[in-house]
């Protein structure tokens, strides 16, 4: 893409987004303090298809906040690449997006990332404050230290950013689009909740959950946008669901679904626990009925019950010795 086109695209997107200001949030004075044990969590399933109008995106996000508020959630989790649907305001139905070269996609993503980031974070901050909800705002593209990264962001109920986490395990497609992996896992936020967020493919690796658990995380949010045209339970269960069975935590998956610029996304929003902590022994506390569409699932989790189970699990299945793990994750000089 030539520099003129890049400039034009950036200016046009900023102009379109600037017409939509978020609501002025009410102060959180008077809001109830966050509970220490039993917390209600909401997980969003999002139709990621490009929006033709910016206010369609804002209305749907507001509706989801309103619904989470109505069912008394304390924590709300949005999916991976939440702001990307806004590009529909520039490229209405993504026509021909699948024919773009990797270099062009890379250029579009990098050019539009700053404006999308500002808009997305401004709205999520305002709505978190307005609804007094701790919010994992999903993930979006950001240029950080010159590198394009896919970053999850956490807001407290006053709308302040309390955590940012770039994706650690980027997919080969993302690498081709110029998205760089993060190098470190951030400390969890809001003790004693211990909320942390990772991004999509990070949940393929139990090591991510081990790191988070060692840092004190108890709730791990996983915004996803799985490029799977066909949803199967097996593939879905390989991620967060599997990892919390061996590394006990509350796993919260928020899924983007639908067609997004040539990609067909499927997935269910869900709240997962070790099977022993779910009433029916399934490991699934709440989950969307269908792997496409939009909505919210919610459930109450007990952090005290989880803490007791974590202690019992560690006693029953202790970590391997340090020298074993040092050798397993040894980084060779020539890597």
């Amino acid at each position: 893409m030539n520099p003129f086109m890049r400039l034009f695209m950036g200016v046009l997107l900023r102009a379109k987004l600037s017409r939509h200001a978020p609501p002025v949030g009410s102060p959180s004075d008077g809001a109830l303090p966050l509970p220490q044990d039993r917390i209600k969590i909401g997980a969003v399933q999002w139709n990621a298809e490009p929006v033709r109008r910016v206010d369609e995106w804002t209305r749907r996000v507001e509706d989801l906040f309103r619904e989470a508020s109505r069912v008394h959630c304390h924590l709300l989790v949005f999916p991976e690449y939440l702001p990307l649907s806004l590009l529909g305001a520039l490229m209405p139905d993504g026509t021909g997006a699948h024919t773009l070269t990797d270099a062009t996609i890379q250029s579009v993503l990098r050019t539009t990332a700053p404006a999308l980031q500002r808009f997305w974070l401004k709205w999520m901050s305002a709505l978190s404050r307005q609804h007094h909800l701790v919010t994992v705002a999903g993930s979006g593209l950001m240029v950080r230290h010159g590198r394009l990264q896919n970053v999850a962001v956490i807001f407290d109920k006053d709308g302040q950013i309390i955590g940012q986490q770039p994706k650690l395990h980027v997919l080969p497609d993302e690498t081709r689009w110029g998205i760089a992996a993060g190098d470190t896992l951030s400390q969890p936020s809001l003790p004693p909740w211990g909320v942390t967020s990772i991004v999509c493919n990070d949940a393929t690796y139990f090591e991510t959950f081990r790191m988070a658990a060692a840092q004190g995380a108890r709730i791990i949010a996983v915004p996803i946008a799985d490029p799977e045209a066909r949803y199967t339970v097996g593939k879905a269960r390989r991620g967060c669901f599997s990892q919390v069975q061996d590394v006990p935590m509350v796993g919260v998956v928020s899924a983007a679904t639908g067609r997004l610029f040539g990609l067909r996304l499927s997935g269910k929003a869900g709240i997962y626990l070790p099977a022993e902590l779910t009433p029916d022994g399934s490991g699934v506390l709440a989950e969307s009925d269908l792997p496409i569409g939009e909505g919210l699932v919610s459930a109450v989790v007990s952090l005290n019950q989880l803490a007791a189970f974590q202690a019992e699990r560690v006693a029953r299945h202790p970590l391997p010795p340090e020298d074993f793990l040092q050798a397993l994750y040894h980084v060779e000089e020539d890597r």
Partner: protein
Amino acid sequence: MAKVWIIAESELPPPRTGYDLVLWSTAILPSATQTQTWAGWAETHIIARTPAAETLAFTPHPRDWAATDLAMGNGRVWRFEDRYVAWLDRSALHVPEVGRALSMAGVELIVSDTDQRYPSPFLDPLWRTVQANQIYGLSLDTSPRLYWPCEIDPAEEGFQALEREPGGFSATLDFSALESARRLFPIHQGLRLDVYQSHGWWDR
């Protein structure tokens, strides 16, 4: 391709040929001589193991089949047709590092017997190990199951019940298909050893 016969009898059935590997989870082991002779007649590798982890293993030649005892978990590893097969206790697989270490060392089939019935295969730690490392798993109980990577399962669920036949069950494993799975979704290539090493969750 490797054709596997899982014996579901309390005694060794009459030997028959055409298999590459025979697995037998048994309450009581027969004598070593009887098992060795059986392997020779059946012209196959055989591993017989009790719940107490007493094990006999012979090659078709028939000779002792040399094994390495695992440092972690109660189990052993054998070299089989240029790859490795491990048989270990299911409880060891609740520590996912064990499966990771085995697969990174070249194990492509993990065998594990259990008396626990999992309400769903997705709750079986062997299924998780198989998916996390894109290897094969054989779960031996009253209804044995084959676990394999979702990428090479036409149903994309990563498991299938084994076919019943006289004397037990059989399964055919195409080890070269594992390479296809790893090409389609390169899990091991995506490991961030640098990040894990710098976080070192083991020294906290």
